[in-house]
């Protein structure tokens, strides 16, 4: 997803840019309203994080100039003013959400994700990748046309991985986004459910994973988390750089069983 940050504070702009890049987005940061308007005339991002107090042209002026021309772009407004009228005005002008400073970086990221998720839901009710089709409205999944019977959590997990295909999702992130649990809980539920998902997806496509012949669709990124392959072949050199462990289900099960055993102990 393309994200445009318009924030005049260089330290904050830098953190927001770095933080959202980690999420796998293409992020551009501009420090004044006029540059933002120029950029918006050239190309609309998927999400704009807009500070209200800006040099040259403030955030409200930008929103006023964009009324009726958002073209599917989501807007998250940041403001240090606690007057409710300002936030109401921004929302009325077409902003999707407002955050009052000081805010938590985690909350901002979560709100960005929610806005992009909502946007994506409207954009495409079916997520497709490597023969997998996830029908969001009908809540059903197929792989190469074969139905895959998933539980509610397995479905939510696959949906999240499909939305972030090609990007490593950390265990903490999956725990927070899919289970709404704190990463501090120390549970291995993510590993367990990834294993369930792999088995079910592999069962629908005998050439994959468990059969040993095909590549693993959900890769383990050693020390980081999991990633749904984006469909293109990955070279061994690239694998080495990413630190991706292309473990088969048996290998993963071994790791997960070890974790389960530690939990049990």
């Amino acid at each position: 997803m393309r994200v445009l940050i318009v924030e005049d504070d260089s330290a904050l702009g830098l953190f927001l840019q770095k933080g959202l890049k980690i999420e796998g987005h293409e992020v551009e940061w501009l420090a004044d309203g006029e540059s933002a308007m120029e950029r918006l005339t050239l190309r609309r991002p998927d999400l704009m994080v807009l500070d209200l107090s800006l040099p040259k042209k403030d955030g409200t002026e930008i929103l006023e100039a964009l009324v009726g021309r958002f073209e599917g772009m989501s807007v998250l407004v940041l403001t240090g003013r606690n007057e409710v009228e300002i936030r109401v005005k921004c929302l009325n002008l077409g902003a999707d959400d407002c955050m009052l400073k000081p805010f938590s970086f985690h909350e901002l990221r979560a709100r960005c994700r929610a806005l992009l998720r909502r946007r994506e839901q409207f954009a495409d009710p079916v997520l497709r990748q490597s023969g997998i089709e996830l029908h969001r409205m009908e809540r059903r999944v197929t792989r190469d046309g074969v139905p895959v019977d998933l539980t509610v959590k397995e479905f939510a997990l696959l949906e999240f991985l499909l939305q972030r295909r090609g990007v490593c999702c950390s265990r903490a992130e999956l725990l927070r986004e899919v289970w709404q649990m704190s990463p501090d809980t120390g549970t291995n539920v993510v590993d367990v459910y990834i294993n369930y998902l792999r088995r079910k997806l592999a069962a629908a496509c005998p050439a994959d994973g468990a059969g040993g012949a095909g590549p693993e669709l959900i890769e383990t990124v050693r020390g980081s988390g999991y990633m749904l392959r984006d469909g293109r072949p990955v070279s061994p050199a690239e694998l080495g750089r990413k630190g991706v462990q292309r473990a088969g289900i048996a290998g993963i099960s071994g790791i997960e069983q070890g974790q389960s055993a530690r939990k049990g102990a």
Partner: protein
Amino acid sequence: MRTSDGNLLRELNEQLHAMSQPMTVLLCAMEYGAGLDSVHEMREAVRISQEACERLRKNVVSMQVAVREAIEESKGDERFLGHGHAG
């Protein structure tokens, strides 16, 4: 409400607004820094946090000065109006 009280409230509101910026930087730097593996990036986060702390300190000092001046002014008013505790 006296004009000076109104000015003081407006000034405090402005100061609070000014404080929200370094506070956000500080919060973001701490949360972002907590997830970093790179020493270089960690140092950068600490440096930016220190700058934000300094900006916060200056804001707090300005607020203290404004409040102190307002208190002094109100004491003067009380003495003028004969509402003081003297005697």
